């Protein structure tokens, strides 16, 4: 049961896409929004408490807990792609997926003329390709 949650968070900490798969705790949307903004602010503070030079350090990029692993990928535009998986999924795999997710976002959200930037992603094509991308890494998706 590898990857079980994926978030896309915009520059100001708002959740614009979320997917919860089997194995995830089921959170209502409000709770997901709160988690996303908490994560965003944790990232900000992690820069402030840095013991070393913070130039070109974006803050927290990965987090390990006893039973899961979180990986965050933030391209220069400031948007954040977050994947949460069980610990046996390696960092490289997660990062690879997030980079491909970034491509999907560019293709099927940003290139869609009716998508408004920084707003929740409600694009059918994005959903379809997202599921195609995730399929090898997830257990049955939660409806």
């Amino acid at each position, binding site marked *: 049961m590898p990857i079980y949650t994926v978030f896309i968070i915009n520059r100001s900490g708002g959740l614009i896409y979320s997917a919860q798969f089997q194995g995830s705790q089921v959170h209502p949307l409000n709770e997901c929004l709160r988690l996303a903004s*908490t994560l965003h602010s944790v990232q900000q503070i992690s820069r402030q408490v840095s013991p070393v030079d913070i130039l070109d350090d974006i803050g927290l990029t990965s987090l390990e807990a006893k039973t899961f692993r979180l990986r965050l990928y933030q391209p220069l535009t400031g948007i954040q792609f977050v994947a949460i998986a069980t610990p046996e999924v390696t960092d490289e795999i997660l990062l690879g997926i997030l980079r491909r997710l970034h491509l999907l976002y560019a293709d099927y959200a940003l290139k869609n003329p009716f998508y408004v930037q920084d707003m929740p992603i409600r694009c059918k094509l994005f959903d379809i390709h997202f599921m195609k991308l995730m399929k090898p890494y997830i257990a049955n998706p939660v409806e």
Partner: protein
Amino acid sequence: MQVYNFYLFSRHGTCLYYREWQRTRPGSDTQQEQQNLIGLLFAVKQLCRSLAPANDDSLPIDTATRYMPRGPSNFCSYSTEKYQLHCFESSTGLRFVLTTSPTASDLTRILQRVYREAYVECAIRNPLYTLGTSIVSESFRKRLDSVIRTLAVESTVFRPASEKALRGNGSPATKS
């Protein structure tokens, strides 16, 4: 591997002990920094409880909805591009925090040793130490240093592996 600094926070979030080694960026306001850090740890604790997989049987059972989850945090470490922060929380709510250069290894064991060999020996067992006050004991510092020193020795032994893992993280794995 470089070791930057160490914090020990009490269950009420006050900093009981602070020590730095190879820290390069001087903290501007120590107190503010400690407050930021403890705030971060509390936020991370809630976050990690919510993000843990369903039916995680290593977590305490919460009978009622509460603001802070019960029991020690399941958080182990986070890393940025420049540093890694490791945290171990005891069941009594003490938080042992160590920052190092980003490595791939889990330092919970080291922090547990600090708990056992420094905190218990030099604070808990010292009848003149009042619980929850900052630790000024010289022997605490010595024991802390000796535990951290073993870490430095271990890391030279394991360096090749961890450096390789590090390079793996940075390499672009984009294939679409």
